[in-house]
């Protein structure tokens, strides 16, 4: 059978607000004592009323705009009713038939083959997060759940893709690029292990000949990018095997078991919960003014994909290097700040990615905290291009700049690398160098500035950077004048 894999994702991202979606409790809950960030609203106490967090709306609108969605000028909040102690109200405030935004897409790229694909976004809506249940001892034997409501009410944006992903690898790629995007925008920290980004996946197999869609299964408990891919690969093999044996796929929700690397049935379609959605009477319809959309649109920074393309065009960087500066935007900022001050982008790029990052990682320092600012790195590189120091010495100076926080010129002045100031001594060295570089002397005679710099460089190298460059230049020029007269 010629078949096609059809995958859709449902992604929840925790929005980076300071406070919860409907109250002013802190969202800072990781590692906190249980039930500290709770109040009558997020505990669902009678008489309490939810009030919308403006920042959460703005972050959701920002995400929706970047995902090319249409923002609904009026959207509604609904109650999604279910009995489970992770929400004390017995309902979750979510959005249903009138979501915040609809009908968008995200373009993702395969880094190696430079193929871009567009993945449709069905909708983006706002909802509140639920609390956490903890079970002591073996989960199947515990009689009680311990409930921590610190996470309850943290704003989530749920993003639902169209079933337009066609392999587990593509699904993983999409998720990683979406994560990079929301992180870049500052709307979510994108940490799957800590659950600030969560993903459910559904997968089915379509018969290419008849075009008939297969029965889909939904997979839950995907806690890393790798598990999204592994679970989908497993599920694909499982479904194929059933179909090959003439069996039938059952529409159901399956649970990914990370240890055993298998999916197991959770509930069938018949057992699917009936949430009895109805409009949340405690909240007004959410009206998004054009003014807000325009203001947010104006403040959306250059997106990673746009930056990647620009870096290649503007600085002639390789695909790989442009990708690196895009993935690590602070490093990209560092490069661009330095590039504005230094003409040789290729040299700059090499010094940043090889030398600077090498020494920084040796000292376990992030680029954000680099003791060498872009300006100071450029200062060092200029000393090299001017022939004042050799590249080799430059490297050892950079290492000292990182450990001492000093400028390159300062280190050179203070260092024991004593300059050779003696005219006679330098003359001798220049003679030695001239003997070794006859070609360059010919170039020099014909007035090539490059050859002059080259010979100065050779003298500097010979003296391990100790000769005073101005003096070297002067002496070589004098010799040249002698020849030319």
């Amino acid at each position, binding site marked *: 059978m010629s078949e096609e894999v059809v995958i859709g994702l449902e992604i929840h991202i925790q929005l980076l607000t300071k*406070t919860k979606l409907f109250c002013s409790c802190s969202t800072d809950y990781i590692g906190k004592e249980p039930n500290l960030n709770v109040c009558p609203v997020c505990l669902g106490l009678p008489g309490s009323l939810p009030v919308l967090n403006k920042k959460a709306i703005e972050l959701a609108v920002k995400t929706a705009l970047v995902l090319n969605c249409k923002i609904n000028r009026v959207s509604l909040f609904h109650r999604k009713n279910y009995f489970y102690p992770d929400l004390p109200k017995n309902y979750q405030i979510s959005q249903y038939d009138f979501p915040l935004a609809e009908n968008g897409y995200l373009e993702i790229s395969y880094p190696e083959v430079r193929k871009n694909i567009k993945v449709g976004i069905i909708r983006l809506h706002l909802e509140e997060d639920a609390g956490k249940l903890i079970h002591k001892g073996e989960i199947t034997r515990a009689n009680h759940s311990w409930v921590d409501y610190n996470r309850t009410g943290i704003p989530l944006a749920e993003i639902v893709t169209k079933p337009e992903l066609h392999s587990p690898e593509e699904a993983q790629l999409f998720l990683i690029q979406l994560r990079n995007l929301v992180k870049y925008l500052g709307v979510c920290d994108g940490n799957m292990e800590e659950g600030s980004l969560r993903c459910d996946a559904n997968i089915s197999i379509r018969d290419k000949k008849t075009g008939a869609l297969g029965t889909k299964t939904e997979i839950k408990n995907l806690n890393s990018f790798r598990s999204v891919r592994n679970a989908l690969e497993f599920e694909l093999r499982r479904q194929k095997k059933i179909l090959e044996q003439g069996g039938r796929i059952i529409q159901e929700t399956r649970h990914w078991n990370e240890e055993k690397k298998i999916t197991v049935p959770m509930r069938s379609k018949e057992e699917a919960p009936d949430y009895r959605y109805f409009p949340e009477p405690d909240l*007004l319809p959410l009206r998004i003014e054009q003014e807000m959309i325009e203001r947010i649109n104006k403040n959306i920074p250059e997106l990673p994909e746009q930056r990647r393309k620009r870096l290649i065009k503007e600085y002639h960087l390789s695909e790989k290097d442009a990708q690196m500066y895009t993935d690590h935007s602070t490093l990209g900022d560092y490069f661009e700040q330095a590039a504005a001050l230094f003409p040789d982008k290729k040299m700059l790029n090499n010094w940043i990615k090889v030398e600077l990052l090498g020494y920084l990682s040796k000292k376990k320092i992030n680029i954000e905290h680099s003791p060498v600012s872009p300006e100071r790195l450029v200062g060092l590189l200029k000393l090299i291009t001017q022939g004042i120091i050799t590249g080799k010495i430059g490297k050892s100076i950079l290492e000292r700049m990182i450990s001492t926080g000093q400028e390159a010129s300062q280190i050179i002045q203070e260092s024991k690398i004593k300059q050779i100031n003696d005219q006679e001594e330098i003359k001798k060295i220049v003679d030695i160098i001239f003997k070794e570089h006859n070609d360059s002397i010919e170039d020099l005679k014909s007035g090539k500035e490059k050859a002059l710099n080259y010979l100065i460089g050779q003298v500097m190298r010979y003296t391990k950077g100790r000769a005073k460059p101005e003096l070297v230049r002067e002496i070589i020029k004098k010799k040249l004048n002698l020849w030319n007269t």
Partner: protein
Amino acid sequence: MKRVISGKEIEHIARLARLAISLDEKKEFTVQLNSILDYFKKISELNTDNIEPTAYIISKTNRYNEDSVRDSLPKKEVFSLGPFMEEGFFKAPRIME
């Protein structure tokens, strides 16, 4: 009058709401809910073309909270709320999914 909702559906709704109802109650609720739903059928007869759906009767604009943290409930008060607290957690019966 034609029934809109059956006895079986009443059972289903009761189960969703975790309500145990007797046979008499089931009959009673079936009649009551049907008369309520019939009333809505009556309303549905009105022509509402070109009228925006009204999910809310108040036409106010949104009220927002600014994103600044205010004190949560004191620990002591939170702990006095749950009938069963253990090590700072609310204790709830385990629900099998």
